């Protein structure tokens, strides 16, 4: 059984404020209980991978991105991007 505080903690990790969303906790509990079905399953320890040789990778070249990309970002001050203050 998953504890409510743990779901709230997970929400904090992802910067989701649960203050008005108590019903989410209920729904998430239900879904997590369903996920317990995984306990019955077995599986190899190999994870699916995609592989590539070193040759397939990007060449080390400087190609400037032409456009004045900064102007398209919504929040800029002079040429910096604005963000809320840090404590």
């Amino acid at each position, binding site marked *: 059984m998953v504890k409510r505080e743990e779901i709230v903690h997970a929400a904090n990790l992802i910067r989701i404020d649960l203050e008005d969303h108590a019903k989410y906790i209920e729904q998430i509990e239900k879904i997590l209980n369903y996920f317990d079905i995984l306990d019955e399953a077995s599986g190899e320890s190999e994870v699916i991978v995609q592989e590539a040789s070193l040759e397939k990778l990007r*060449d080390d*070249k*400087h190609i400037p991105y032409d456009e004045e990309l900064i102007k398209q970002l919504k929040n800029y001050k002079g*040429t910096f991007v604005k963000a809320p*203050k840090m404590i």
Partner: protein
Amino acid sequence: MTKIGLEIHCQLTKLESKLFCSCKADYRNFETNRNICPVCIGLPGSLPLLNKKAVEKAAMIAMALGCKTPQKIAFFRKNYFYPDLPKNFQITQYNAFGPTSIGYDGNVLIENKEIRIRRIQLEEDPGRIVYEGTSEKTQLTLIDYNRAGTPLVEIVTEPDFETPKQVRLFLNVLADLVENLGVSDPSLEGALRVDGNISIDKGNRVEIKNVGSFRDIEKALHFEITRQQSLAEREIPIPAETRHWDEARKITVSARSKEEEQDYRYFLEADIPWVLIESSVIDKLKKNMPESISSKKERYIKKYGIPLQVAEVLSSDKFYSDLFEQAHNEKNAKEIANIITTDLKGFADTKEQREQLKLTPKHLSDLAEAVMNNIITRNSGKLALQEIVKTGKSLSEIISSLDLGHVDDESSLSKIIDDVFSEEEKAVSEAKSNPDTINYLVGKVMQKTKGKANPALTLDIIKKKLDSK
């Protein structure tokens, strides 16, 4: 028993492009937010494209530090929120599931102490933050993403260091090493950054972050040792925590432990395939790797008979050793080594000086030949070098314009000595009884000839003249 471990971040400034996109790796000469593209600022729909050369350079660093490289490497996401992190996760490497980073299990010898390298990983640098405003209301965070995505190699050591001095020596070796490999320019601001962790007498481990320069890390560690020792003496337990180095006050300060709460939820970065590092690739890299500093040093000593001190200076400075390699041959190697490590002092110390230096390898070999064949004296050689450095003119031009050729023939020397004798009558009479005064007379001849007189011959002629008096 003090235990110190290090976490070093080295930017691969010598690469052309960033780790996952084609913006410039060295962001330093750009206006704010002009070295960005959809990938490095994490625009929706953008995908990372791994830089082939970054993998090769990182593999070279791993090899140089004695590390193993796995057959396949992978990348992981480290998830957390911060303004300088455009995607709010960092693409990095992670070895908790098994070795998948570019290097692991290496070691380095520092003054006969083995320092084990736990791992070496490739990751992207975040952007840079500037804080603005003073009061609570007006404060803002301003972000420049030019640096976001710059390739970093993170080197983590085991806590094998016992003293801050060992740390400093290691860092110097590391700086020389990355410069010698041609992967990074450690003189650039921010190219090499160090965090440390330290514990005394099996006590709790304290992390030290935010240290600006290599010199400061030694100071920070000394301070920390003292602080921990004084707590231990008073039997106060040392809390495990992260502390920041306050550069202005030269002390470490407890950082608000937000970092302890972090759960990074590492998982595989699916946009980047596992990269196969075949052993043929490793062999090729090894073959093409620049010669190591210690190998150069040994070669200089054994092959050319260059003295240890000179060989150390020459091999550990890439600029010097490159110059040496291009200028020398079997015969003049020792002389050139000497000129570089002694006479060049003051003329080619800083980056600016080296960039503007008009000295070429040919100048050096010409100079060495001239001195070795007695065409000019060593002193004249020093003067000539100064001119070359400034003007870049050829040696022969300088020898004639500054009139540096030797005064070798007996008759002209004899005349000059006669002149000196008539000017220094007192010294001449003293010289007969006091041999030291002979040196004074030789000096006067050197002065008169602007150093061009052949010293041995001068002494000879003076002695003969004195004897005949």
